[in-house]
């Protein structure tokens, strides 16, 4: 929170032209940390690409990777052109940012946000904008047209992501005003992508052969490599969200690592109980589930409390994923089960066990707990509805799905004219 006031404050300072004053606040250490964190979050994109691509069949590997890469391509530009302004610009309305910082106008190397250059803040936040639609892609792989996907993530970023980011993190955003805690994007990123994933597959439909054939991951080492990069990058994601190299960042880092380990254990134990064996894919999934769970509370929850947050996150996500086959919706790579469900768990448990720099149920702050639930539900509902409408329109105009023949032969060839391996 404090962090956000700093930002607000210094943004104001800049607009008042008090550059000299601003300059006094630059911390090279904080800047170094946020730049590193930016790079770490960027690495999560190839990490996610590998994590996802390992799980698809070998005819859809490149098309899966390309969904993450395309998010880097399109949203990185959108963010500079209008996204940053849409989320963090403007005069502080509750719902949207503004149009005053299109093309980052008014920002220069000397502009500061808190103790770091505004450019750093823009870049760091941009990475979150990039990764969120890429997360959704896990639900739609193996059947969605690449061109339409590209258009989809562009629209989604503008209409869903930017406003939601403004609600939670932007000056005057209504959830921020109500004090909703979302340290590193549990609500903005995980709940929004999970809810949107549900909306997209609702329109998109199941893969051919879903529940009839087994869709076996083509390369689990690839998925595990991706999981390793995600774990690594998540340190930037969570601890970077302190926007400074200080004790809060250090705690966020340690809590993140602890929760990730606990999520891994939780998933494996649940799996061992249910199926008799702990699987490698379970380890990868569990560590991501733990990371999702701790994301909203990383800077508010002590490392010791991060253990149950992550562990239960791992267990809950495991059972959520198990339910997929029973409910019969084809969330190909379990975006809903992990990011949606894990995001909800994280948002709510933060309202229970957060003790550092904030209140929660544990300190008797019921209001905070309720705010957490309101924030999670509001974002989920908004993201679901708007995404559903976007997809219906895109489906009517272009069609979301590749042809049945293309789906059989694989999207690598139909969408990209390539095959992944020639060994």
């Amino acid at each position, binding site marked *: 929170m404090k962090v956000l006031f700093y930002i607000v404050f210094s943004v104001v300072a800049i607009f008042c032209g008090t550059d000299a004053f601003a300059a006094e606040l630059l911390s090279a250490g904080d800047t170094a940390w946020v730049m590193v964190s930016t790079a770490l979050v960027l690495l999560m994109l190839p990490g996610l690409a590998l994590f996802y691509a390992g799980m698809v069949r070998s005819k859809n590997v490149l098309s899966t990777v390309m969904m993450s890469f395309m998010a880097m391509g399109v949203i990185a530009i959108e963010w500079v052109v209008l996204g940053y302004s849409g989320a963090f610009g403007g005069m502080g309305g509750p719902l949207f940012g503004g149009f005053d910082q299109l093309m980052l106008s008014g920002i220069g190397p000397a502009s500061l946000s808190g103790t770091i250059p505004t450019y750093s803040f823009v870049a760091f936040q941009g990475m979150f904008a990039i990764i969120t639609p890429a997360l959704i892609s896990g639900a739609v792989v193996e059947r969605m047209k690449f061109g339409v996907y590209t258009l989809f993530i562009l629209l989604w970023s503008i209409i869903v992501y930017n406003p939601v980011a403004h609600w939670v993190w932007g000056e005057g955003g209504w959830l921020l005003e109500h004090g909703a805690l979302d340290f590193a994007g549990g609500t903005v990123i995980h709940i929004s992508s999970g809810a949107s994933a549900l909306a997209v597959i609702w329109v998109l439909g199941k893969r051919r052969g879903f529940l009839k054939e*087994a869709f*076996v991951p083509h390369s689990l080492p690839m998925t595990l490599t991706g999981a390793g990069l995600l774990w690594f990058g998540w340190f930037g994601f969570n601890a970077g969200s302190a926007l400074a190299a200080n004790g809060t960042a250090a705690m966020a880092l340690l809590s993140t690592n602890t929760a990730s380990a606990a999520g891994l254990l939780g998933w494996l134990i649940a799996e061992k109980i249910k199926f008799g064996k702990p699987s490698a894919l379970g380890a990868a999934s569990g560590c991501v589930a733990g990371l999702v769970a701790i994301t909203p509370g990383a800077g508010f929850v002590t490392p010791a409390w991060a253990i149950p947050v992550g562990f239960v996150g791992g267990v809950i996500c495991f059972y959520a994923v198990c339910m*997929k*086959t029973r409910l019969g919706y084809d969330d190909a790579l379990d975006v809903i*089960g992990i990011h949606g469900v894990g995001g909800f768990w994280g948002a709510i448990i933060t309202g229970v066990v957060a003790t550092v720099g904030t209140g929660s149920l544990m300190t008797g702050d019921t209001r905070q707990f309720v705010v957490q639930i309101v924030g999670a539900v509001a974002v989920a509902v908004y993201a679901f509805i708007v995404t559903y409408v976007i997809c219906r329109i895109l489906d009517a105009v272009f069609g979301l799905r590749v042809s049945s023949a293309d789906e059989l032969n694989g999207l690598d060839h139909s969408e990209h004219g390539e095959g992944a391996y020639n060994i």
Partner: protein
Amino acid sequence: MKKIEAIIKPFRLDEVLEALKAVGVTGMTVTEVKGFGRQKGRKELYRGAEHEVEFVPKTMIALVVSDELLDQSVDAIVEAARTGKIGDGKIFVSEIGEAIRVRTGERGKSVL
């Protein structure tokens, strides 16, 4: 000349190779294949689901031998490949009409 095609458990390949060498076989060709048979595939875990893999990894050895060497070769394979468990595999024998060595163009038994 006879062609022997033996489908065996992959980890017996080295033993079979040694056994065949011992009876005087000097050439063979090996392919990685997937087998379906009495031996059931394994259960595999996949994110909250368990599914049966119908095929089992197998190794196929193809060798063309002179009629005289046929029986010894088959016996050698049977002995070296056997573990006694279901899935040890099958051997099929068929007739080969002609054999040609690419390098020299020569034909017949001397090619083997």
